[in-house]
């Protein structure tokens, strides 16, 4: 008896199939009160399916769910939440033009029929005090940062009385600082006796925040263990089922300079100066990694190089050609590829077919068009080749690209951009949101490009990735290059300090 009371939720033998494919195969999971339980697995491992079953979005084909020792069956998310299980999805379900207080009360059975803004705000304050989480209740949601919006989502679920909170890849959308704040919130919640299910495929995070880890692979339960003593290497092996060699060959004898920036000053889209006189050189056959916390000018750096943004002053040249005010087309024609930070905003049109997205950089070439006419069969061939080479998993090249999973969208864009990058590849957060295997693939595609003599500028806010991939590292802070390190001088601590704006002599 003593043991059951310690368990908040017990899922036994859950199976779920989708159109014949088994997404969950007899998976069991128990969640203790007051623990952070990480669900770890590759894309498609069944993490989301399992949590959607717990949260009442899907009904399991077989298996039982016990909440506080009592068997329950959920037909809807509201039934699950009434039983104490709530989920915060990766994509928020907030009404942007409405206030925090309004969002907290939206659809809640406890919201009175007649309300005033004053009542809602007062009630929101009460909820926040109870839970111990603060967001300005009168602020409109669109004015909040992503981290704050996530907090509103968490509040909304907890306000309905959830004792078990499922967070679906909560850090995927957050900056490093916001992630830190989220972890503080999670610790506070479990200290109050709640249970948090933390879904992720980022191993370091999972080791940092969780008490226990359950690994799923291909819809099957692999292991549940205490986090203490777990290593990233071991977890990666459990997730992928294979030993991954996390090693990149490095190049110490780089070629001639390809990209040169001199005293580049540029404003961001709000008109605030984001690059304060950047000097930077990237040579043929090397990967230059930009280390830095997001929002320190990296986005604008990639944009000025690729022609999406023009600098206020300074100069940029590629292979000796001045491109300071060049158009995206001129710069691409010089052999510059760009894996953009946000593939949905810049990289592709989700409603257009995979085929049309595949040819976006090549449709003007003589291979795909003659005069104004497009060669239809050549285009189909090209798209099929690109899809195969990039290992993009899609049912057909005529399918809307937006219907593919995020990982496959990224593979498509990464491969397409690598193909035009004869001289320079600008890769902004190329592996963000990808699972271990897909990350490996995109990384090796970048290394391959470098080995053909292409210069690579890689931006990432994941310092591990920058350290792993780069032949040289430049640290960026508040729109300036704080320092440049050769591979032999890599020093995690010094780089980390510079990312925070300390211990730097501004690099000339």
């Amino acid at each position, binding site marked *: 008896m003593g043991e059951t009371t310690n368990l908040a939720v017990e899922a036994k033998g859950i199976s*779920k*199939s*989708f*159109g014949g494919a088994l*997404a969950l195969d007899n998976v069991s999971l128990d969640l203790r009160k007051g623990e952070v339980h990480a669900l770890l697995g590759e894309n498609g491992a069944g993490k*989301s*399916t399992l949590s*959607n079953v717990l949260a009442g979005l*899907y*009904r399991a*084909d077989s298996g039982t769910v016990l909440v506080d020792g009592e068997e329950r069956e959920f037909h809807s998310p509201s039934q699950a939440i009434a039983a104490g299980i709530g989920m915060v999805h990766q994509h928020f379900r907030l009404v942007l033009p409405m206030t925090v207080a309004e969002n907290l009360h939206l659809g809640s059975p406890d919201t009175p029929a007649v309300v005033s803004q004053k009542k809602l705000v007062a009630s929101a304050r009460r909820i926040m005090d109870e839970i111990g989480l603060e967001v300005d209740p009168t602020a409109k949601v669109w004015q909040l940062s992503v981290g704050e919006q996530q907090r509103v989502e968490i509040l909304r679920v907890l306000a309905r009385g959830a004792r078990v909170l499922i967070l679906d890849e909560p850090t995927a959308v957050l900056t490093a600082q916001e992630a830190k704040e989220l972890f503080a919130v999670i610790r506070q919640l479990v200290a109050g006796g709640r249970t948090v299910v933390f879904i992720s495929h980022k191993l370091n995070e999972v080791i940092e925040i969780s008490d226990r880890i359950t690994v799923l692979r291909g819809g099957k339960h692999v292991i549940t263990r205490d986090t203490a003593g777990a290593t990233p290497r071991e977890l990666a092996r459990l997730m992928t089922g294979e030993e991954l060699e996390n090693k990149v060959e490095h190049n110490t004898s780089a070629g001639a300079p390809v990209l040169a920036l001199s005293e580049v000053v540029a404003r961001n889209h709000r008109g605030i100066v984001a690059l304060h006189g950047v000097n930077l050189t990237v040579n043929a056959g090397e990967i230059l990694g930009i280390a830095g916390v997001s929002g320190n000018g990296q986005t604008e750096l990639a944009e000025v190089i690729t022609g*999406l943004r023009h600098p206020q002053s300074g100069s940029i040249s590629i292979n000796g050609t001045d491109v300071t005010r060049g*158009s*995206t*087309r*001129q710069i*691409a024609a010089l052999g510059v590829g*760009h894996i*953009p930070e946000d593939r949905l*905003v*810049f*990289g*592709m*049109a*989700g*409603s*257009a077919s995979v085929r*049309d*997205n595949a*040819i*976006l*950089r090549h*449709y*003007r070439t003589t291979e795909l*068009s003659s005069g*104004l*006419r*497009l060669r*239809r069969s050549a285009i189909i061939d090209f798209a099929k080749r690109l899809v195969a080479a990039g290992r993009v998993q899609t*049912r*057909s090249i*005529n*399918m*809307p690209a937006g*219907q593919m999973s995020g990982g496959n969208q990224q593979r498509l864009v990464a491969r397409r951009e690598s193909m035009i990058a004869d001289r320079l590849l600008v890769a902004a957060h190329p592996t963000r949101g990808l699972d271990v295997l897909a990350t490996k693939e995109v990384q090796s595609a970048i290394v391959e490009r470098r080995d053909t003599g292409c210069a690579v500028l890689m931006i990432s806010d994941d310092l591990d990735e920058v350290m792993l991939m780069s032949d040289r590292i430049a640290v960026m802070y508040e729109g300036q290059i704080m320092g440049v390190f050769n591979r032999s001088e890599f020093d995690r601590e010094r780089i980390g300090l510079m990312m925070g704006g300390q211990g730097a002599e501004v690099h000339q």
Partner: protein
Amino acid sequence: MIPFRFARRLEVDSRRSNTYRILGAIAGLILAGLLLLITSRNPFRLFGQSMEAIFGSQRGIEGVLVQSIPILMCAIGVALSLRMKIWNIGSDGQFLMGAFAAVGIGTKLDIPHWLLIILMALIAAAAGALWILVPALARAYWGVNEIITTLLLNFVALQLVLWASLGFWRDRETQVTQSTESVKAVLPRLPGLDSVSIAFIVPIVLAVVLFLVFRSTRLGYEIDMIGGNANAASFAGINVRRRIVGVMLVTGAIAGLGGMLQLTGAPGAQALSGGFSNKFGLSGFIVAALAGASFIGVVVAGLFISAMFYAGIALQTKGLSVYIIFGIYGVVLSGIAVGEMLARFRMVRRSEATSTQGAAA
């Protein structure tokens, strides 16, 4: 609980979509028939009379074709802008301005008729383009919503036409008090037909040309990508602003040319008056929306809606109230729209239905 639910299809081929539209139209007609039945009218007889009015004589068929020309011209322009996700609500105004400009020279110049026709066509297209120039620039450079600007310019165009027909270009010779003089040149009729002019060829050729442009040219691809995601198009080096302005001007020019074709081609429409455009722009908009911006679809839908309107006029002369006729239009068009929506979904058993959701999530 209902054991079935709808799940979104990943791909919708045009064949399925068209079949569903036709089924939707038939369902709409059946529903309209039921409504007539419960208001104790005989739907079969009325349907028979409609068919008789359209297909019973050459006059009927020609009437449908004549009416379809202005609707098709407006619809083709709208469909073109829809490929770029731009909503040109102003084709009525551009249509009127095209006619306005054509009247300006068509009633004044004494030159050979063939030359006059060509000049009128050019100036009408230019006037239509000019009428959308400001909305196009505002949209391309400052992001001003084109729905509002193009819509409002319709009223300006209508006032200008009224002023011309009641004021500065009013016909002072004849007894007609509310229209301009008639233009001096008209288009020849198609061989063997009484009322259909060679104007009918223009929208058909335009539709085929645009179909080919979007099927197999770089320009068509660029426009489609801008419609899909203007940021991505710009990322790939497409000059989005220039394309937006260019496409919008062409849609205006097509509608303006439509005004000139009506003026020189339609029987009894050789002078400009306040009632010159019989909501052709609005009908064209409905046609483009129903056809899903496919140019061949626009031609089919345009002929269909034109036949439906023609039948409506015939039924009106048989004593059916105009409100009931509008009601029938609405039911039938809604049926097509619903059919178009349904084509994007499939019915699945409930347990399986959750699965497709899951696969997409």
